[in-house]
């Protein structure tokens, strides 16, 4: 039978395929191959989601830790300072992981059957909410302490870099003494700063007290900060005091 005759024969397709199967040229993949594939996909998706949550919660944590989360209360200048203090590299990494999670989730029927915007908003909403809640737990603060004591090899440098960022015009610290219109602040970067209160400074209604932990937004020159706003940070953990040994 010539090639064209063979192709015109309606049975040739099944014959060709069955012959190839019988000869062993085509083999059925075992069930475990597909189970492994699904397991790898699920593992990859879970790992990507966990990494995303870790980074997102760390961003919230570092914003709170450095005080920039709170300065938006001080009006336009506060918002400006907040935007400039955002950890852009971490935000870009977060965006990359959102895309990775989005691509992985696209393999599941619940995702590809819906417009992409729903999956994207779902992932962003889930990351934002859960990331924020995780940032409120002691998870990152305990890791920061580990990193400060150099007990954290994994992510230690990131914690040291973003846990105590020098943001210039945003300072957090403990009040060590009040003197008229100024007070001394022991910053979380272990500097002793003089904070000047002017008539334009937004101060808390309850006033300020020694040993209180505060965030200060203001123009800094050397170790003197002319405050635009001061806000007490209640429930703030991990703030150092001058009596503590310096960080390594």
């Amino acid at each position, binding site marked *: 039978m010539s090639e064209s005759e063979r192709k015109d024969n309606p049975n040739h397709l*099944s014959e060709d395929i*069955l012959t190839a199967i019988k000869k062993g040229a085509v083999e059925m*993949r075992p069930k475990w191959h597909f189970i492994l594939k699904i397991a790898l996909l699920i593992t990859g998706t879970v790992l990507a989601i966990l990494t995303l949550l870790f980074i997102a919660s760390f961003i919230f944590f570092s914003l709170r830790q450095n005080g920039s989360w709170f300065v938006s209360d001080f009006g336009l200048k506060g918002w400006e300072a907040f935007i400039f203090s955002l950890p852009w590299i971490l935000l870009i990494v977060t965006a990359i992981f959102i895309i990775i999670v989005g691509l992985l989730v696209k393999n599941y029927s619940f995702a590809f*059957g819906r417009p992409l915007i729903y999956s994207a908003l779902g992932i962003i909403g889930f990351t934002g909410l859960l990331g924020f809640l995780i940032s409120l737990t002691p998870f990152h603060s305990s890791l920061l302490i580990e990193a400060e004591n150099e007990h954290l090899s994994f992510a230690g440098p990131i914690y040291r870099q973003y846990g105590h960022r020098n943001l210039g015009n945003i300072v957090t610290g403990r009040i060590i003494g009040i003197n008229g219109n100024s007070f001394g602040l022991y910053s979380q970067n272990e500097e002793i700063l003089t904070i000047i209160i002017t008539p334009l400074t937004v101060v808390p209604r309850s006033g300020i007290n020694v040993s209180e932990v505060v965030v200060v937004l203001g123009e800094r020159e050397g170790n003197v900060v002319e405050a635009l706003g001061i806000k007490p940070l209640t429930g703030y953990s991990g703030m150092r005091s001058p009596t503590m040994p310096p960080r390594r």
Partner: protein
Amino acid sequence: MDEQSDEAIVLLVQGGDLSAFKTLIDRYDSKMMRYAKRFLFGYDDAQDALQEIFIKAYRNIKSFDTRRRFSPWLYRIAHNEFINIIKKKGREPLSFFDPDTIFPHPISTHFADTEIKEKELREFLEKSLDKLPVKYREPIVLFYFEEMDYKQIATIMQIPISTVGIRIRRGKILLQKIHDNNLHI
């Protein structure tokens, strides 16, 4: 075996029954050929693609969940095979990302035209498929010639149901423009 469901036959194939696989090939070869010839309009690869579809189906048959329907699973394999051929040939642009899949669209339902109109439309579509970009051609082929609903098409193409509707509608508008231009020439 002829009266058994596809899924019951697949169960036999999974157990190593080769004659059951022959039954599946016999059931689907003409459908797949029809789909291939229309999707790969103007390509000479339909015959080879057909063989490859069934070989891939056999290789991966153990991944098929017999609680689901076999037909969309096989069409999905065919879809991937045709897309690969189009990519390899490089004659038609295929975008990795389609903006139509981002936002929800109101599902544009297909209103049954009169039988004559429907017949005319199919005849015109048949002649003009090669003028349509791949992303419009495939849902039109599946809808008008394979007589699938939006949900089945969405499963095969792995796109949202509303995107299927929008692509069919845009494909038809594009064909209408081509038709009108031909009348004016």
